[in-house]
């Protein structure tokens, strides 16, 4: 039967659409807008750190309270409102049905609701800046008692507490988690039940595997946090004592609940990006992916380990020392599967006919930068070192070296790679290279020196070092200024990208179906894919990475090519 189109109104086509591609695009645009907000916050507080006491261009003076709120919301936005929607929801929604040869997600209505709940959560988050008292400023981890001000307030007031920045932040996060849960259910059911004929488990592209593993990790680790968020909200609004030691509760419980989710969350963000790499590297080195099955097993192992390591974030919080050893060992163990995955990626490059196109540059840049983040993570995973480095700029630099390549390099690699799919057009390559190199240099400029600041003892939650002569000595203040200048450069660089996208969207369609000569199913469909994706629906005969087969005419054999 053919896919016939019926006339859709603007609202049902672009706004309340149930088409997985529209929803994926909506998530991506929303994520990019939020990245702009998060970047602006970062600009403001970075400027304040480098030039304390000066008025900040495009903002004004930044007080300590607002500084804390900006840092907190910057972290929140970048993890929950940029990383999650862009990597997991945008690419998951767009790519999973295309790559498994399906017409749409399993539950399109749920998918649409998921996006709109997400949009509301973003609104609630932004609204928290404008309530009396401002946005929450106690760190993105929301540790009580900062986040449970209800029992600290001498004159508790229900409505004041309900419409405080804290409550709105908890509410926004809860809504965001609900949206992602709905998306996760969709991913799993779609992948399990809606694959094209012949798409057996071992023929599914790695990115679809990884998105699903990420969805599973997310679903199984978020539950306790949801329960904990209710408790935190009641502590804040109604004055219960779940996390109040004075009332028999325990603030440590929240730390456990938060990090039980918060650490697996890192892998939820990481796995989709690694999946992007697994798609891009074989295409641009014209070689099959090295150790396909091993990569999947390693990812499953890391998913299992990821829920057993959370308390390495709490080494200085006074957890039981015996457990600290356990969590230290678990943390160092979890580097083994990821090292294995990265080694498999490098083995994919080995001896390949490498095409240094823009997506490939982002992918290789990802590997290089993530190496720094991963190795410093090994230090921090050991509780003896962590006690020294905890809450310093060393930690800040470490997790930016993991999350920035993960979220942004992964996103840009995927975006440059799949943009021909989204739009049928090609991004300008030389602007893409400028974008890559400037981003790469400026990113290192921001965070590499901060490792030294951290080792020198600079604490991450201080807005003005000039009042601490011991740690504001040279060269560390200069390092802060270099970091800030590079951060501004990093943000300005992104305008090249925006300009490139806008310019490319105005070009005519290239009409090339498979510009990168890739094998996976999404390139079988038209670019951009029509409603219903495929006509006729493809049948799969081979694995996802059949490059340079000895007896093939061309060096790529799409998955729907029958075996000879």
């Amino acid at each position: 039967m053919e896919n016939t189109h019926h006339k859709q109104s603007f609202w049902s086509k672009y706004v309340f659409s149930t088409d997985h591609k529209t929803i994926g695009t909506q998530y991506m645009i929303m994520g990019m807008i939020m990245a702009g907000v998060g970047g602006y916050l970062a600009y403001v507080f970075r400027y304040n750190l480098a030039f304390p006491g000066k008025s900040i261009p495009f903002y004004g003076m930044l007080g300590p309270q607002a500084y804390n709120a900006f840092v907190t919301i910057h972290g929140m936005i970048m993890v929950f409102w940029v990383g999650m929607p862009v990597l997991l929801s945008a690419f998951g929604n767009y790519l999973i049905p295309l790559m498994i040869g399906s017409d749409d997600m399993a539950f399109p209505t749920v998918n649409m609701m998921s996006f709109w709940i997400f949009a509301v959560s973003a609104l609630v988050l932004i609204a928290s800046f404008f309530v009396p008292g401002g946005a929450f400023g106690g760190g993105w981890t929301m540790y009580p008692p900062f986040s449970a001000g209800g029992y600290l307030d001498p004159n508790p007031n229900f409505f004041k507490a309900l419409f405080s920045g804290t409550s709105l932040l908890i509410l926004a996060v809860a809504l965001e988690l609900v949206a992602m849960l709905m998306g996760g259910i969709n991913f799993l059911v779609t992948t399990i039940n809606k694959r094209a004929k012949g798409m057996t488990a071992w023929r599914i592209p790695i990115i679809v595997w990884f998105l699903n593993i990420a969805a599973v990790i997310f679903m199984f680790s978020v539950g306790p946090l949801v329960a904990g968020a209710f408790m935190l909200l009641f502590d804040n609004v109604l004055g219960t004592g779940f996390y109040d030691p004075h009332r028999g509760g325990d603030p440590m419980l929240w730390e456990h609940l938060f990090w039980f989710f918060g650490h697996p969350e890192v892998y939820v963000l990481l796995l989709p990006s690694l999946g992007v790499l697994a798609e891009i590297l074989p295409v641009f080195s014209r070689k099959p992916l090295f150790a396909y099955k091993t990569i999947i097993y390693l990812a499953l192992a890391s998913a299992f380990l990821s829920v057993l390591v959370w308390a390495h974030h709490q080494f200085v919080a006074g957890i039981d020392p015996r457990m600290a050893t356990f969590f230290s060992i678990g943390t160092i163990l979890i580097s083994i599967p990821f090292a294995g995955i990265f080694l498999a990626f490098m083995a994919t490059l080995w001896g390949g006919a490498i095409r240094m196109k823009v997506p490939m540059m982002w992918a290789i840049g990802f590997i290089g930068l993530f190496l720094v983040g991963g190795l410093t993570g090994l230090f921090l995973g050991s509780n003896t070192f962590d006690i020294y480095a905890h809450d310093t700029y060393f930690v800040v630099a470490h997790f930016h070296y993991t999350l920035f390549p993960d979220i942004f390099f992964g996103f840009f690699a995927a975006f440059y790679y799949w943009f021909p799919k989204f739009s049928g057009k090609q991004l300008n390559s030389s602007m893409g290279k400028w974008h890559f190199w400037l981003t790469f240099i400026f990113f290192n400029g921001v965070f590499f020196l901060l490792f030294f600041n951290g080792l020198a003892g600079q604490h991450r939650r201080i807005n003005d070092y000039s009042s601490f002569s011991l740690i504001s000595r040279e060269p560390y203040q200069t390092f802060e200024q270099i970091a800030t200048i590079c951060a501004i450069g990093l943000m300005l660089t992104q305008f090249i990208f925006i300009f490139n996208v806008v310019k490319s969207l105005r070009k005519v369609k290239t009409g090339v179906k498979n510009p990168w000569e890739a094998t996976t199913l999404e390139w079988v469909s038209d670019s951009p894919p029509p409603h219903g994706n495929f006509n006729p629906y493809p049948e799969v005969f081979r694995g996802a990475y059949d490059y340079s087969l000895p007896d093939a005419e061309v060096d790529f054999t799409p998955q729907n090519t029958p075996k000879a």
Partner: protein
Amino acid sequence: MTSTIVTPGIHVGLEDSHGPVSFQPIHSSPDHDNVVYPNEATDYHGHPHYGRVLITLLLLLGVSLTVGYVFSPGIAIALIFLTALWKVTLVVRNFMHLKYEPLFIYIAIAAVALIIYAFFFGVYPDITAVPRDVTFPH
């Protein structure tokens, strides 16, 4: 819309949002996906004797209510939670038809139990192994 064949029998759409679902003859396609209900291909599970399960559940409830009066507290609590586990197993296996589901679903449910256990294990010393009296004197 070209080939709409409406046949007697009751059909289940893929999803509401797809608009009116194209109807198919019940036995036309061997590999349809949730199109027909009840469906030999997908509605593969049988139906246990629900009444018997219900009576067992109620009896177990009676047991869990009475053991407290019969045994010492330690044994009673163990028995109470064992009966609770038994009840849950009965409900999940029979009412939710887990016993007819593929292994995948078992794994998902077992994963829930494992995750919860991991959480309990990791948090246990920090919450329980602290000085018992942590309330401050006024």
